[in-house]
């Protein structure tokens, strides 16, 4: 017997297949260009007449509220039922668009975006799970700071998820004799969140922006001078706190000083995944399009890497990393629901922002994106505010050419939401995917982590809010 979740996901795929077959007529008759992303270019700008009903935002709100509260207040129910909840809420929106709005463009575009998103995350997750780093050095505040900075940098190459997976265990092991919750909290701040603000691979919101048409190197060019002082400031605070936790007594334990690295094959797979990000007809014209299918060569390469890197990974490494598919399965299910239910929210927000116009400043976008990214997942939050910002200037987030124009004409707006979505993801356990993963690995390693509110009251509010306020005053006020 198939579990209910699997039956629903097959049902979901069949619907997407049905939409794709309908769409193929429209595309062939329009002799559209190649990219899967280009499908969106046929999407019409939504006038007030064909806007979805405001009530259709409800599935999105319900899903986000459950994602935020489920793991905290009813986690056994949530763990068992989240796939079915996410898929059912997603199907409500899909049926509404199919049978009430007759809008297949938005659905197919969203399916393509979802597959790209999950292909990147799952491939980075599985490939980095087959790598093991062992550092046999004495724990010092500066060594810890070095690891955190290294993690912040590589988060931009292998994603915050990949960097967190790769470094959290060696980080815990180095500090095993004096580990405290703040070690893990600062790891979440720097490696799982703030670090990944420089490239679209770094953090899911930026990848969604890239899929919508933001140029790959735009982020690093417009964010590095905000990223660098923030990273250094947070690291400095860590060093000050960590210096007070160093025992003056010598433990007598001998350290070889060696850094051991296992799973080189998986480093190669990571490299393939990173390169494949650019294998898109919109970026390289020679890349064939698989349109009207909602995926391209890039996604095929990435999903192949998932299979290859898992099947060829060393069993001992997977065991040492306590590898399991649960975290990525959770992301895959939840984001099916998020991507589907957020379609009406995106369209309505864009429309409203166009009406509010002048009242919306970069500072407002910075704080609004930031506060919502703290409590909701930062990827859909970013996309909603990108839609709102573009709506303010009468542009459509579904058209890559307009996104490109927007990043050139109004960089401060795009920079404000990019920085806020990534940075504020560190405010709570639920702000960004890897946060919960790092918390879970730490607890499985025997570390008692602070509660949801403890994390905020003891760490993120006193440490991060003052720094994020300085960022706002200097760059977006």
């Amino acid at each position: 017997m198939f579990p209910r979740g699997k039956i629903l996901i097959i049902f979901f795929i069949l619907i997407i297949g049905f939409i794709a077959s309908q769409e193929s007529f429209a595309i062939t008759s329009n002799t559209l260009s190649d990219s899967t992303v280009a499908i969106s270019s046929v999407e019409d700008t939504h006038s007030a007449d064909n806007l979805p009903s405001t009530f259709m935002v409800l599935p999105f709100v319900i899903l986000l509220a459950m994602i935020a509260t489920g793991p905290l207040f009813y986690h056994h129910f949530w763990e068992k039922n989240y796939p079915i909840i996410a898929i059912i809420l997603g199907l409500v929106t899909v049926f509404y668009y199919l049978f009430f709005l007759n809008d297949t463009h938005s659905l197919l575009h969203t399916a393509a975006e979802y597959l790209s998103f999950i292909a990147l995350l799952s491939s980075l997750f599985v490939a980095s799970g087959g790598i093991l780093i062992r550092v046999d050095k004495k724990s010092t505040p500066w060594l810890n700071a070095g690891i955190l900075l290294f993690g912040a940098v590589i988060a931009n190459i292998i994603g915050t998820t990949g960097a967190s997976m790769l470094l959290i265990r060696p980080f815990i092991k180095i500090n095993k004799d004096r580990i405290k919750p703040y070690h893990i909290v600062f790891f979440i701040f720097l490696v799982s969140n703030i670090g990944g603000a420089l490239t679209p691979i770094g953090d899911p919101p930026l990848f969604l922006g890239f899929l919508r048409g933001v140029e790959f190197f735009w982020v690093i060019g417009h964010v590095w001078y905000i990223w660098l002082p923030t990273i250094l400031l947070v690291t400095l605070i860590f060093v000050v706190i960590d210096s007070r936790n160093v025992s003056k007594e010598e433990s007598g334990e001998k350290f070889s000083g060696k850094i051991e690295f296992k799973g080189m094959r998986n480093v190669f797979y990571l490299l393939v995944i990173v390169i494949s990000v650019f294998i898109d007809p919109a970026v390289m014209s020679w890349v064939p399009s698989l349109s009207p299918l909602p995926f391209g060569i890039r996604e095929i390469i990435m999903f192949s890497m998932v299979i290859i890197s898992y099947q060829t990974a060393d069993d001992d490494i997977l065991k040492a990393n306590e590898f399991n598919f649960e975290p990525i399965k959770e992301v895959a299910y939840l984001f099916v629901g998020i991507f589907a239910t957020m379609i009406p929210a995106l369209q309505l927000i864009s429309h409203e922002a166009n009406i509010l116009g002048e009242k919306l400043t970069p500072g407002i976008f910075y704080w609004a994106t930031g506060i919502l990214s703290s409590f909701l997942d930062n990827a859909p939050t970013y996309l909603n505010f990108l839609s709102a910002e573009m709506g303010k200037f009468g542009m459509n987030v579904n058209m890559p050419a307009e996104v490109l124009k927007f990043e050139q004409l109004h960089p401060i707006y795009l920079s404000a939401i990019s920085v806020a979505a990534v940075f504020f993801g560190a405010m709570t356990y639920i702000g960004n995917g890897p946060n919960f993963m790092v918390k879970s690995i730490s607890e499985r390693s025997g570390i008692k982590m602070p509660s949801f509110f403890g994390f905020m009251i003891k760490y993120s509010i006193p440490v991060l809010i003052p720094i994020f306020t300085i960022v706002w005053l200097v760059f977006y006020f």
Partner: protein
Amino acid sequence: MKSISEILKQKQTGLYFGNRVLLPFSCHILKLNIENDLITDFSPCCKGVYVSENPDFMEIYFHDYKDLGEVITKYEAIKMIVVEKGKDIFNEKYHITLALHPEDNHQLRIEKLGENQIFIE
């Protein structure tokens, strides 16, 4: 009853049925991890876990889980820090970190935690 070191040396397995674990030795459990649950309360009022001692074996019931074979995947384990009955519980050198792996036919592989794995006391 055999000691933990004998059990480990002879690679003797335990058993599991649904949410019930049977261990072929007797010990004091100091700390236990299953999935994301870190358990240190083994008193009778604790709802998540119940430990029962018998003359020849020990039982642990995990009330929040239905089937341990489904919950604990191939590369995961239930981790616990234990002290053998009769040994000085206050002496850290007697604290042993064990990993329990549910396998086919209700077998529970018991091993000392490897050097790559971590379970901090």
